[in-house]
């Protein structure tokens, strides 16, 4: 397979870095609004998630 050419960070889905994943899941993809129950467009998610992420990193690493 051609994809092997660039194998540097080719990872199975469960090992993809969360931060790279969230870049795409929170800023990419088809955004649907309208008659649905909920879409992320209803929530300032990037802001929220970033806060959650930073908070969790803070917890992990303590004060720095």
């Amino acid at each position, binding site marked *: 397979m051609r994809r092997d050419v660039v194998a540097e960070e080719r990872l199975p889905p*469960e090992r993809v870095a969360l931060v790279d994943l969230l*870049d795409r899941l929170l800023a990419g993809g*088809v955004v649907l609004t*309208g008659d649905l129950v909920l879409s992320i467009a209803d929530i300032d998610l990037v802001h929220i998630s970033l806060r959650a992420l930073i908070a969790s990193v803070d917890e992990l690493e303590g004060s720095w």
Partner: protein
Amino acid sequence: MTDAGSGSGEGFAEGEGFAVGGNFAEGEGFAAGEGEGTYLYAVARDPLPAPAGVAGAPVRTIAHAGLVAYVSTVPLERFGEEPLRRLLEDMDWLAETARAHHLVVDTVAALTTTAPVRLVTVYADDAQVADLLERRENDFLRLLEHVTGRREWGVKAYAVQPAEQEHPQQSAEAHAGRPGTAYLQRRRTSLRGREQARRQALQRADHIHRALAAVAAAGLRHRAQDPRLSGRDAPMLLNGAYLVDQERDAEFADLVATFGGDGVELRMTGPWAPYSFTVMEAT
């Protein structure tokens, strides 16, 4: 219901229009019950088996209007707006949900052209999803056409400082003055040097992005990742995403490889489902 729903209802009015694939028995979960919603992962053209989705629920397909939606049933007590606001603050929940969503999208995208849907998109029931496919058929088909035979690659560039200490020549030229002055001068020179290096690095990132985008079918820059999130102290100069024709993967990778070194470190991720290139606002 919208005009499309009532106007051309024949598509799925008999319940025949949307075939439901996979391990799905008749009746149960067809239209999500009271307190349940239909979570939408992705839209493609073929029904394929997919792994379990968010909250461990089995993923099924809704086929309508030549399109196939990948969905699962979710409890609204967790995927309603209010609970979700709280849960999104919960890092473990967010990580778990993002990974489950990704696993479904990634599995399908590895086998067929796929338009991923943004994380957490929940409909009242399957019929609403079928209605969406009908109303936005052309948009989805156009989107799928755009990403056919192409995959997304991520390219991140970091500024790596070769040496944090002052350069010898700067110390040498500062010798003339008194120690305090020399120190200040040295410091100023060092700051100026660093600022200049930063500006050059940013220009280089612009250059790299333009060059990669030229080989790709499309390219865009995500916001640079916070060092606290990326786990890397080195400043991120570029957080690019590129939609590349599969036949040009090798060419693209070779090009990426030419840009590393000399104070810039490059990391490539992927291939990804075309998350960054299926941004479509649909109502």
